[in-house]
């Protein structure tokens, strides 16, 4: 690598949720920051919602799978040896651009799994340490929900009122009242009422293919414009190839290639990795160098290991009533934490959160069901009429306990469009996870039947559900078995930080984005507070 490099005080790799939180916070506090993002700024004018071919486009160009999209800015992931296919979006805003907006917190017990249940490990931080950052990022991401939910500790209510839950969720809420089970209106990072110049949700029902209204929070809208206003740089089409160390063993910056093939260097006093649990692990492994022969900051050997993705099941109820179930926000109409915490009477520990979601349009209703049932010939029309607009799905997010054998490694043959080794996943859902899902599927079926569903379709361990990428650079106090400390700082490289879902010690059983954002907020504040004491390469 030759030629001069740009230099900023902080360099962030990845412009998604965590990168956006850190970038904006640092820039607003006068720190010179740049972000390298291998994708580009998304263009909401291209989002497919208004097009009649929406459902066709959502299965290719707007798929969550980088392998299906196959864009130059994506990197392929070898998932042949994984039970679950990874999903993500590479671009400014990151996977938030294509996520559902389900904005929920981990519970206090999630941070103390070893202490309470004797499995896995405790986090080096607690719920109460993260709570102020949850409340702050609730504001930044336009959380719309209802306070005083008894399934979580007291605290500030979400800043915006909840979105409408719709007819289907109302039926299920009534059913849970009869059953005596917990339910609550879902919290979503979607603008629910007029607030300044922000656009309000108009219920396209297409959150997972980009919000054409701009009402769903993603950092291309909520964070990076403000960061740029305060001097931050976002360099797109820039794929980082390795983190560079200087003679002192501290990071001096990164090398990257543009998607046109030009090689570049960017120097920085501090490097922050925010590239998701696959991208960050891959980059650390790609950054192997003398003194870090198994990957950067990998003296523990756990970089890439303990991959968690949340085993996921979908339980769909078919109702007699027209519920207009292609409408409305996709994240969570309502949620239930009735079976979230450990119960000694079950044959598993931990639990799962449920989110009730709409079920899409006619192509979704016509294709083989989640249970694999195809109906053709004359009965096809009744089959579609029976489902279209008349079904609701409980999405079940099971806690995924960490396992060293579930891991990200570098593929020996597969490469991305820049010729860099692609990541390869080894992931198997455990018998424990399967028992957990079986229990929850039975309870969710009971819920929907009580609500009046006359048919139940079940998809167990859904393959294309790998949105929640966690755990491959876990935080901890002991450098022998963790990669970063409680502030996201690499034990072995004092000016290298990880702020994405890689740092998760355990997965919880909830959508992780709110926790990822809260942790990034905590690290950002620490970077600002400890700025003068930060060791940097000379």
């Amino acid at each position: 690598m030759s030629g001069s490099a740009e230099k900023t005080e902080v360099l962030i790799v990845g412009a998604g949720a965590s990168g956006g939180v850190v970038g904006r916070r640092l820039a607003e506090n006068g720190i010179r920051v740049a972000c390298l993002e291998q994708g580009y700024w998304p263009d909401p004018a291209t989002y497919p919602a208004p097009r009649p071919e929406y459902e066709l486009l959502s299965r290719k160009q707007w798929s969550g799978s980088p392998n299906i999209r196959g864009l130059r800015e994506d990197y392929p992931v070898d998932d042949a040896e994984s039970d679950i296919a990874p999903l993500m979006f590479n671009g400014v805003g990151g996977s938030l651009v294509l996520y559902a907006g389900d904005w929920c917190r981990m519970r206090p017990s999630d941070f103390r799994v070893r202490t309470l249940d004797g499995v896995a490990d405790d986090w080096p931080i607690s719920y109460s340490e993260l709570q102020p950052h949850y409340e702050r990022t609730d504001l930044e991401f336009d959380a719309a929900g209802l306070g005083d939910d008894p399934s979580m500790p007291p605290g500030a209510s979400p800043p915006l009122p909840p979105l409408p839950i719709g007819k289907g969720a109302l039926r299920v809420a009534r059913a849970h009242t009869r059953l005596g089970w917990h339910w609550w209106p879902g919290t979503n990072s979607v603008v629910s009422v007029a607030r300044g110049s922000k656009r309000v949700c108009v219920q396209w029902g297409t959150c997972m293919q980009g919000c054409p209204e701009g009402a769903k929070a993603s950092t291309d809208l909520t964070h990076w414009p403000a960061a740029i206003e305060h001097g931050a740089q976002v360099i797109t089409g820039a794929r980082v190839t390795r983190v560079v160390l200087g003679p002192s063993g501290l990071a001096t910056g990164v090398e990257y290639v543009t998607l046109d093939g030009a090689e570049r260097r960017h120097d920085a006093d501090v490097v922050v990795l925010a590239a998701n649990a696959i991208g960050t692990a891959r980059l650390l492994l790609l950054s192997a160098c003398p003194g870090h022969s198994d990957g950067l900051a990998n003296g523990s050997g756990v970089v890439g290991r303990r991959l968690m993705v949340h085993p996921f099941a979908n339980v769909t109820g078919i109702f007699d009533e027209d519920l207009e179930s292609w409408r409305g926000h996709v994240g969570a109409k309502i949620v239930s934490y009735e079976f979230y915490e450990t119960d000694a009477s079950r044959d598993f520990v931990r639990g799962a959160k449920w989110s009730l979601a709409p079920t899409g349009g006619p192509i979704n209703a016509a294709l083989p069901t989640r249970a694999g049932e195809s109906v053709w010939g004359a009965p096809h029309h009744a089959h579609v009429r029976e489902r279209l607009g008349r079904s609701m799905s409980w999405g079940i997010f099971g806690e995924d306990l960490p396992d060293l054998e579930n891991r990200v490694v570098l593929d020996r043959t597969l490469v991305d469009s820049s010729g860099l080794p692609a990541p390869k996943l080894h992931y198997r859902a455990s018998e424990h996870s399967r028992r957990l899902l079986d229990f929850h599927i039975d309870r969710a079926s009971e819920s929907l039947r009580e609500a009046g569903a006359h048919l139940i379709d079940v998809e167990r361990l859904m393959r294309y559900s790998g949105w929640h990428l966690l755990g491959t650079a876990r935080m901890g106090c002991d450098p022998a078995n963790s990669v970063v400390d409680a502030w996201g700082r690499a034990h072995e490289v004092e000016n290298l930080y990880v702020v994405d879902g890689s740092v998760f010690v355990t997965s919880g059983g909830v959508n992780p984005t709110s926790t990822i954002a809260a942790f990034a907020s905590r690290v950002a504040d620490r970077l600002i507070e400890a700025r003068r004491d930060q060791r940097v390469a000379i």
Partner: protein
Amino acid sequence: MEPVAEDGVGIELRLRLRELADELIPAADGMPAASDVGVADVQLDRVLAARPDLVAPLRAAFARPAGAAVEWLERLAVEDPAGYEAVLLAVVGGYYTDREVRRRLGYRGQEPNPVQPEIIPNYVEEGLLDAVLERGQRYRDAPEERSEPTTQAGDP
């Protein structure tokens, strides 16, 4: 040699697709047959304009010998999953993007429908949350102190 249209699918493929599509989606229950709405003609053009990636797997699928529709499709699902998916998307995608089909189903497509914040939710009027609140705390308390980490973690 089979004439191939500019979109990459030939006349023979369209003929076979039309025949297959009508067996999968015949006229019934007040709904038109697949061919009535041009699933192998104008609607196939529409599907392939949106999804040009389907051309190659469609051609590969229909290069296979013909057979009874459902049995042919079931065998395709096993032997050529990409071709199977392409055929289903061509048939179903073409049929359900047709305006008249949608009208008969009462589906107008994804469309904006502004939130009405002034409406009091039914669940509030019905007092459904009161029962949840009356049950009290539903999360487990956890200590601030933590246990020492382990080196290997997994199933209990």
